[in-house]
């Protein structure tokens, strides 16, 4: 199949490919992450990488950008063979990378994060802070980002804004090959369109781009060619113009996916969660909403609109300052996640690695973390029961792991997300709050998670789903709530929730300068 890919390039013409990798092999202790992967990127081409979670996409690009050394295979830039021993080597060769994991310096400013490692210098090699700030301003302008200043401490930024800083950093190197590993995972449609404009601009300047995403539509909007990986092997390369989403899914999953949004209507029960004038500064400014048993309520909004804050306030991580919360009609005081858990509230956070999982711990240990009480007697853990609980979860959610003794940190994104979900469901909650449940998750896993949500709803669970992915919100929700700048801006029944209407509500009247002035 792979020669199909190279054939395409020949047609593309004389210029040697900007990047050509061939026969890449990569082993991790016990894992063959990549086996004989080859593909090429031409100047001015957007080349998408597609594959399930754990297929090896990130590993591949980490090899290209010098983070890992391949166990076999070659990397050519402009036909010249290269060996990248460090990310620095790759940078010098004109390769800039946006990594999947946000890798930032929390205590440093935006400007410094952007220019760390290649800061503008004055005579004598001293750093030029003025230039640094100025050039950051310029980049922000080019991305039309109005709610960030070079001086902001990154630690105080939202996930979305942190993602933008990553992008700025890659752009600041004005590279010839730009690698983006799921750059839009934490962005809303609005940011995505701005990013796309920029990518097209770079493209026209002859910059080559490797683009990884689990969002099929993005690939069709942006990419020229797409290479599909499955279990570390190179399945094939297609011209986007000549393929279909169905074919790609077939290639990466190895089976058909009937429907991405298998939403079924179930009888809606009594209110499980009622929130009245909930206030928690700076981002939650008087929210009132209701979620009923069996109901899936979608919560849409721009990055920084305060959805996670709302969720975390209901969950007690950032207790409310005023307002009222009722669970099953009973007014309650939630001052800590522990309290929330006791009330049958579950929260699947948006930041999987930081808030969702204890990565060095095993699947078993993570599964029982939110429901230790259930596997313990008088505070003593019954490890047999614990193992049983984990096994059950692994089977129920089809987690792809060798055993329950596997360290969670080494599972791929999708499987990690299933574990966070499973860990909470093990506690049999009444209310499930999902914050970006499918962020960075492949279509296969995504469909599974959506199916799961429907099952749970059918069993009478109340679900509040925060998502920045409009199709997901529209596809899965019985009702859609829209947040803007810490307030509820609008509410739509499933029927009249059209992309246009919801989108407009997210932007608000002022439209363009969206996002919270951070």
């Amino acid at each position, binding site marked *: 199949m792979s020669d199909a890919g190279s054939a395409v390039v020949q047609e593309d013409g004389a210029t040697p490919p900007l990047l050509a990798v061939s026969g890449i092999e990569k082993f991790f202790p016990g894992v063959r992450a990549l086996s004989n992967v080859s593909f090429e990127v031409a100047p001015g081409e957007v080349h998408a990488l597609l594959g399930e979670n754990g297929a090896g996409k990130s590993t591949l690009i980490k090899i290209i950008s010098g983070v890992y050394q391949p166990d076999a295979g070659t990397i050519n830039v402009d036909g010249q063979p290269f060996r990248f021993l460090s990310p620095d080597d790759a940078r010098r060769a004109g390769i800039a990378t946006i990594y999947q994991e946000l890798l930032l310096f929390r205590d440093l*400013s935006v400007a410094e994060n952007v220019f760390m490692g290649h800061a503008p210098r004055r005579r004598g090699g001293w750093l030029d802070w003025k230039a640094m700030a100025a050039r950051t301003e310029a980049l922000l302008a080019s991305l039309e980002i109005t709610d960030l200043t070079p001086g902001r401490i990154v630690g105080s930024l939202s996930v979305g804004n942190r993602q933008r800083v990553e992008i700025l950093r890659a752009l600041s190197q004005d590279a010839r090959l730009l690698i983006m590993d799921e750059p839009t995972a934490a962005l809303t449609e609005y940011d995505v369109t701005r990013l796309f404009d920029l990518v097209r601009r770079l493209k026209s300047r002859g910059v080559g781009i490797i683009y990884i995403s689990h969002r099929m539509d993005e690939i069709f909007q942006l990419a020229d060619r797409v290479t599909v990986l499955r279990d570390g092997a190179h399945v094939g390369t297609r011209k986007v113009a000549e393929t279909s989403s169905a074919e790609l899914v077939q290639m990466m999953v190895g089976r058909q996916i009937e429907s991405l949004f298998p939403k079924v209507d179930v009888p809606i029960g009594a209110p499980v969660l009622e929130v009245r004038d909930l206030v928690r500064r700076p981002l939650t400014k008087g929210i009132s909403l209701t979620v009923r048993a069996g109901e899936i309520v979608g919560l849409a909004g721009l990055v920084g609109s305060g959805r996670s804050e709302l969720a975390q306030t209901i969950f007690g991580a950032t207790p409310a300052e005023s307002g009222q919360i009722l669970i099953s009609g009973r007014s309650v005081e939630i001052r800590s996640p522990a309290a929330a858990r006791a009330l049958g509230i579950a929260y699947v956070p948006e930041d999987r690695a930081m808030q969702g999982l204890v990565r060095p711990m095993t699947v078993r240990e993570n599964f029982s973390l939110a429901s230790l009480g259930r596997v313990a007697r008088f505070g003593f853990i019954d490890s047999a029961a614990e193992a049983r609980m984990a096994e059950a979860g692994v089977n129920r959610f089809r987690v792809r792991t060798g055993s329950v003794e596997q360290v969670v940190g080494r599972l791929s994104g999708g499987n990690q997300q299933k574990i966070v979900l499973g860990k909470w469901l093990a506690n049999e909650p009444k209310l499930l709050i999902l914050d970006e449940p499918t962020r960075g998750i492949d279509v296969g896993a995504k469909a599974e998670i959506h199916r799961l949500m429907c099952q749970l709803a059918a069993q009478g669970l109340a679900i509040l789903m925060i998502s920045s992915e409009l199709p997901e919100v529209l596809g899965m929700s019985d009702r859609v709530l829209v947040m803007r700048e810490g307030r509820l801006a609008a509410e739509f029944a499933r029927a009249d929730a059209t992309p246009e209407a919801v989108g407009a509500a997210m932007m608000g009247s002022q439209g363009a300068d969206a996002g919270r002035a951070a």
Partner: protein
Amino acid sequence: MSTLAISPAQSGDGRALRWLASQEALLSFAIVLIAVLVGLYNPRFLATRNLTDIVLGNAYVAVAAIGMSLVIVSGNIDISVGSLIGVLATISGSLAVAGVPMVLVWLTPLVVGVLVMALQGAVVAYLRIPSIVVTLGMLSILKGGLISVTGGRWITDLPQAFHLADIELFGLLPMPVLIMVTATILAALWMRYSASGRAIYATGGNAEAARLCGVSPRRTVLMVFALHGLFAGIATLLFATQLKVIQSTVPPNLELTVITAAVVGGVSILGGVGTVIGSTLATILIAEIASALVFINVSPYWIHAVQGGLILVTVIADILRRRRRQVGG
């Protein structure tokens, strides 16, 4: 001063304002406040003689704290510095008595300091042993080594020339103070305006990210420890040349004093945050407190309690200030 003092995280504009919100400002304020209050109670406290003496007697702590700040900002810690200074003092003293040229007598501690610390840095960076373990081990190695070698013999009748600390420029500016100030300013400038300086913050803040930015955390840690050794060497000179006797034992609790100076100076023990101006101001503050308590006749029995209490207050004040900044976004 303020240009250096503002935390590196902030861009040029509105420096003065930001500085007012900084740890350095808090410390300077505290220093002045105490001086004024104690001065009112006992004017002698404000005598230039006394004020310089306070700094003079603790310049070596400040210089050592500079190195310690580097180490802590890089996400490590060193508890061997006290013992090292003890060892270096003895070495330098013995050379002086042996009649070695002064230049060598003064240079050797710096060199040896760099070597010993670089060795520890290498173990921390390349063999990935937590710094607290390595330096804890080195602490007792140096401590025991010093005594078994010297048998605890004091070094006496040092040549007059040895006493660097007694030199006063233009008869008023004592050498130690001069060295302390220069070292602080140079270190501060270097940490803010040099790539390797920033690399320390990067490494301490997020080693993995640093690596991906082409900064080598390992080389940085090694460098930081080596520099720490250099400052320890300089500190030794200020420390040992004050008296005509060198006790060839390790100065009691010096490592804690130095670490305290660094953290009170606002260096975050979690790494990635802090300036050396802060640590120097903190040293002065702590020394000032110690002296002030004598001046205001605090019962000698309670002095240490009050001292500890004040340090605790400063630290907590700083944490609260920081937190307000964070939330304010």
